[in-house]
């Protein structure tokens, strides 16, 4: 029986997860230095032990209405294998859970979601059936390309 480990967290009141092997660490940083011309998803830069990370507001990225970053929100830093020095800000990091792979399913809605770049579903890697809820597993590798796109759009709008 194979299983996968996920780091779960709450954002905008919903439960999400990312593969734990993508996570570098979780910190309490919640003050960020704004970046000029940054889209609303980008909260800014943060210095963690001398290394600069780009912080992304997950709720904004997932197209939930913009919400204030809470004082006790947490910052999930991803490994360099996921993308160059970035992390996401979530309301509350949950636990490391182990999910049997037989309980994971591809995200299938029956509609072609790859065309709509504004749909959050493009970030969804797969869904896991937990005991009494469904865990949406996100693919953090797709975050940065979206941010790039948003940057470009913002710059175009500004010019």
């Amino acid at each position, binding site marked *: 029986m194979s299983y996968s480990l996920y780091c779960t967290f709450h954002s905008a009141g919903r439960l999400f997860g990312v593969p734990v092997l993508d996570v570098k660490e*979780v910190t309490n940083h919640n003050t960020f230095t704004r970046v000029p011309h940054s889209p609303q998803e980008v909260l800014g830069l943060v210095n963690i032990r001398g290394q600069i990370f780009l912080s992304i507001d997950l709720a904004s990225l997932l197209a939930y209405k913009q919400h204030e970053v809470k004082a006790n929100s947490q910052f999930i830093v991803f490994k360099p294998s996921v993308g160059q020095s970035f992390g996401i800000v979530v309301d509350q990091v949950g636990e*490391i859970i182990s999910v049997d792979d037989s309980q994971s399913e591809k995200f299938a809605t029956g509609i072609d979601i790859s065309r709509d770049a504004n749909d959050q579903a493009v970030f969804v890697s797969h869904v896991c059936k937990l005991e009494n809820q469904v865990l949406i597993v996100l693919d953090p590798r797709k975050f940065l390309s979206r941010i790039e796109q948003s940057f470009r759009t913002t710059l175009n709008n500004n010019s």
Partner: protein
Amino acid sequence: MQNANLGRKLLVLTLLLLALSGIIAWVGISRLQVLDSKVQHMGNRAVKKLVDAGETRALVLASIRAQKNACISTSDEDSKRYAEESKATIVSALKMIDSQFARSSGDEESKQLNSCKASVEQYDKANKDCVALAVQNTILKANKELYGRATDTLERALVSLNLIETTIQNTKKEEPSEMLAGVNACRKLSNHIQEVSRVVGEHVATPVSDSHFIEIDQRAKELMDQLQKLSASFQEICQSANVPTGELSSSMSTFGTSVSEVLRLSALDTNNKAYELSMTTVKDRADVAIRELDDLVMDYEATAGKDVLESRSIFEQSLRYILLACGLGIVLGLGTSYWISTSITRPIALVRDASRMMATGDLRSRIGLKQSDEVGELANATDSLADAISEIVHEIKSSSKVLASTSSHLGSIASGLVNQSEETSSRSSSAAAAVEQLSTNISSMSAAAEEMSMNFSSISSATEELSVAVGAISSSADQTASNVGNVAGAVQVISKSFDEVLAEAREGANVAGKAAQLADNAEQTMRKLDQSGSEISKFTETIKMIALQTNLLALNATIEATSAGEAGKGFAVVAHEIKELANQSAKAAEDVARKIEGVQNGTRQAVKVISEIADVIKQIHQSAGRISQSVENQNKSAQTISMNIDEANKGVGHIARSISEVAATANHMARNIAEASRGATDVSSNVSEAAHASSGISQSVIQVSSAAKQTNASATDVTQSAKQLDQVAEELRNLVGKFKITRDGNA
């Protein structure tokens, strides 16, 4: 294969390498063998040359043999055949030498071949001469002639001679001399013929080269001449004797020609010449050719043998080199693979041991491998993992220390709180006792006041009665006197009661003051309690923060452990435990906070109640003051009454004297008494008010007592929670103590 251990994988790799080197060796050897076979083939070519040379030599020998055969052959056909054979073999030998030229390599060989060819050609020339002579076969022909026709004719001649002799004997019986001469001539001729025949035979048998040949030839010629002469003379004799000699003469002439033919042939003596030639020139040349060919063969043999030996030795040397290289490769490969495998497996075993040590909680060990490959990176990553975990454990340890100190502080604060709340309780119970005393005092005061009031009423009614019965007073002066005495007694009682009331009121005021002080004390204690509660709240906030931090650390530890894979599994369990503990301590801290809040609420309520009590006590104080004043007023009134009554008593003695005076005095008294009655009612109402206030105080004090009890219970709860917290901290410290880290030397 994927799950085979690393050593096995490396073993497989090594075996593969060995197999590969074996294959290379095999291929090398097989190629070398091919090369060797090629070289052998080349050697074989030399051998072929050698064989060809040998064959050429054999051909030359065969030619010599054929030529000899041709020489000694008895029949013409045979000798011709042999001659042809001899010539043909020589031609083929020459052809072979020509073909050798085509194959020759190097001038030396060509030169040698040239000399060979020259010698063989020389031999061929001689041979041709020789066989040309041999095929003529003159001796044979001569012999044939000699032993064929010559002998035939000789015999025929001899027969004819015999016939002639017989004839002569028969015919010349009468002439014996003639007959004798004829017979003698016959005999002579016969002998001569035989002599000729013998000499010719000798002539044929003697080779031309023989020294006797000329002699014999001479003799044969002489004999032939003599024979002709004899024959001629004999014919003359026969003619003279009339003996027919036709047959004899024909046979004689045939014999003559035959013999001369024989002689001619014998003189030619080709056979012997051929022999001679064959034995001398041809033999010499053949010997030269054979020697040359032998040399060639020997050269070829030497070259071929040398080549073959050389190639064999080269092959063996190469084979030795290949085997040596393979052996060296295998040894080096084994050594290198052993070295590589140890350089991989040893650090991995170190990492595994370190991970196991980490799993058992010993974080002191470091691999410290100075290796810059992936294994070194793994070792360094494990070291940094151990460092990170050590850091985390150290932080948890320091956090747990802070937590422990905080919890012990909390415990001490809680016990202080308990002490304070107990003090409050005791104080409030003493306050309650005091208030109860106050209440009883006031009740007794109230009773006294009521009694006073009643007395006043009785005074009033008596006075009224007095007033009504003024007219009849004179008659009942004794009754009046007694009444007045009664009044005086009653007034005295009132006065005494008033004193009592005053004393009681003073005592009440005293108690109230004391109660106010106590209330103030209680309030102060409560405020201290509230402050302590706030302090505890602050500490629980700190604990919650620490728990949150610990939780985060545990989460990161879990992530690190998960990234470490199988090696981090043990630590993941520990990290989970730490996380659970952090959650538990957060919950305990929250529990404490909630309880402290309860305590604080209770305390605030108690403070409120106590301030209410203080208010009430102040009111009591005021009431007591008022009572005191009223009582003093009453006392004054009572003294006035007493004075008046004394006056009345005096007046009663003078009633008879002046009824109108009495009436006036009575009126005055009535007025005074009404005033006293009013004062008494006032006192009564004041007293009842005081009683009411005291019951309020009593109630408040009970409330205070219950609040204090509640506080006490809460404080006990706090103590318990603090103990629990202390326990949790202890557990956390124990758990963290499982890790042995090398920081600050307090692992």
